[in-house]
């Protein structure tokens, strides 16, 4: 589904990703872990197409398409979803209006008929319920006045409504209390654990992986993947720390 080959990217002319390669197939859940400053968030933003994140080498192919040839909204329409570590507040724009227009913009670009108001609300209510979010919150301005946990749950509701093929979730677990973590984890499973979908979880900690069991765990350090393994690698990292595991690889 996603094939990243020798990706190099800079932020403000500073090289952050230095030859990252990763292949994600349909039906797989991958986790990328790594210390602060390793380039985890940069990977998410670069794949999402955020301005200021410049690709200087390598490639990323998403279902046969050159991802870097596509503008951010075209990547979304192609089935990519980026879950933000810090979801942005947009005063005056309601979630319902924003998400309905987004869903219909994606459908339009795929040649599908738009959702009617009623169809959309039914879908939104179902996904909000999945994340145990009050539908009234979606009538409020986008993320304005939401707590950290509510913002992350709202990200998952958006994912449910937009129904992507690949979700890149940047530290969805940060800022969540124990219950919200479980709700989000279960939401990710319900929405994305399917044979035709895939997930890339970007995280510091093992705790989200208790709920969303990854098929592959990768360690990102200094802009490259330095070690890959199964779900047990995350447990080892938690126990021994990044430094020990990364050094063992270098030796």
């Amino acid at each position: 589904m996603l094939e990243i080959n020798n990706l190099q990217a800079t932020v403000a002319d500073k090289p952050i990703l230095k030859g990252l390669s990763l292949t994600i197939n349909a039906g797989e859940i991958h986790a990328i872990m790594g210390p602060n400053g390793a380039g985890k968030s940069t990977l998410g933003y670069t794949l999402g197409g955020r301005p200021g994140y410049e690709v200087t080498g390598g490639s990323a192919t998403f279902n046969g398409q050159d991802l870097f040839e596509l503008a951010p909204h075209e990547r979304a329409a192609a089935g990519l979803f980026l879950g933000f570590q810090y979801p942005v507040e947009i005063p005056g724009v309601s979630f319902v209006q924003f998400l309905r227009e987004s869903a219909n913009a994606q459908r339009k670009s795929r040649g599908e008929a738009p959702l009617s108001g009623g169809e959309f609300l039914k879908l939104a209510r179902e996904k909000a319920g999945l994340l145990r979010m009050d539908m009234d919150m979606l009538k409020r301005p986008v993320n304005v006045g939401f707590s950290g946990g509510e913002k992350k749950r709202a990200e998952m509701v958006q994912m449910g409504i937009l129904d992507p093929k690949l979700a890149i979730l940047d530290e969805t677990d940060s800022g969540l209390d124990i219950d919200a973590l479980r709700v989000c984890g279960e939401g990710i499973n319900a929405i994305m654990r399917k044979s035709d979908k895939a997930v890339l979880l970007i995280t510091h900690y093992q705790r989200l992986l208790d709920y969303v069991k990854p098929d592959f765990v990768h360690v990102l350090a200094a802009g490259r993947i330095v070690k890959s393994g199964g779900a047990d690698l995350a447990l080892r990292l938690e126990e021994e720390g990044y430094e020990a595991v990364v050094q063992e690889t270098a030796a």
Partner: protein
Amino acid sequence: MNVEMTLPSRKDEDFRYSDIEALRSVWPIVTEEIEVAPDAEGTLEIVETGAGAVARHVAITLGKGAKFDLRVLTAGPAYGRIAVDVKLGENADFTLGAAQLATGSETLEVVTEVTHAGLNATSAQIIRTVLAGASVGTYLGRIAVERGADGTDAEQSVRAMLLERTATANARPELEIYADDVKAAHGCAVGELDAQGLFYLMSRGLTPPQAKRLMLQAFIAEAFTGAPGEEALSEAALARLEAIL
């Protein structure tokens, strides 16, 4: 009726940023006088969406305890000038919500003079300007609080959004206060659309014009919140917004 006969020049502070040639075509401006009796309420909508030059001058006098709600939408004229003078008596209340949308080489301006002449009067002005191309958008707003007009509460919120670096926004809020117990808050900002917000919206599938339109719609809506004709005003603004994006 007071009609100024001589065409002003840009040396005149109130016409500092005007398109004088366009102004000539609609000169002289006849002042529209509105008087609101004590404890009465009035509303007015000024909607200018035609392409021709337009200049209006409205003078409103509010009696004791009178209320007035004025909404302005200038979206379309090559030159659009809306000048408003308001005189508030004791306990009077004045609300102005104005939105200006321009593109190309259009020049739009809102010029206000709000005079608090009695005790405890309140006034609130919200001005939202969206400028594309090489357009010019101006707000000149003077608040005068006369001697003895204690308890005055006067607010100005002025924001302009530049869609292109070639557009120009002028904002000049002015306070002239001769009373002691006065609240006068004014905020003024000229900026561009928040890039982070735009990326967030586009990452969900909105095209760049859709994302901008959604953010600007919310920005303009602030000028029409609570207006009797809120919905129609917002729709008229949206139509122009879609044309200039």
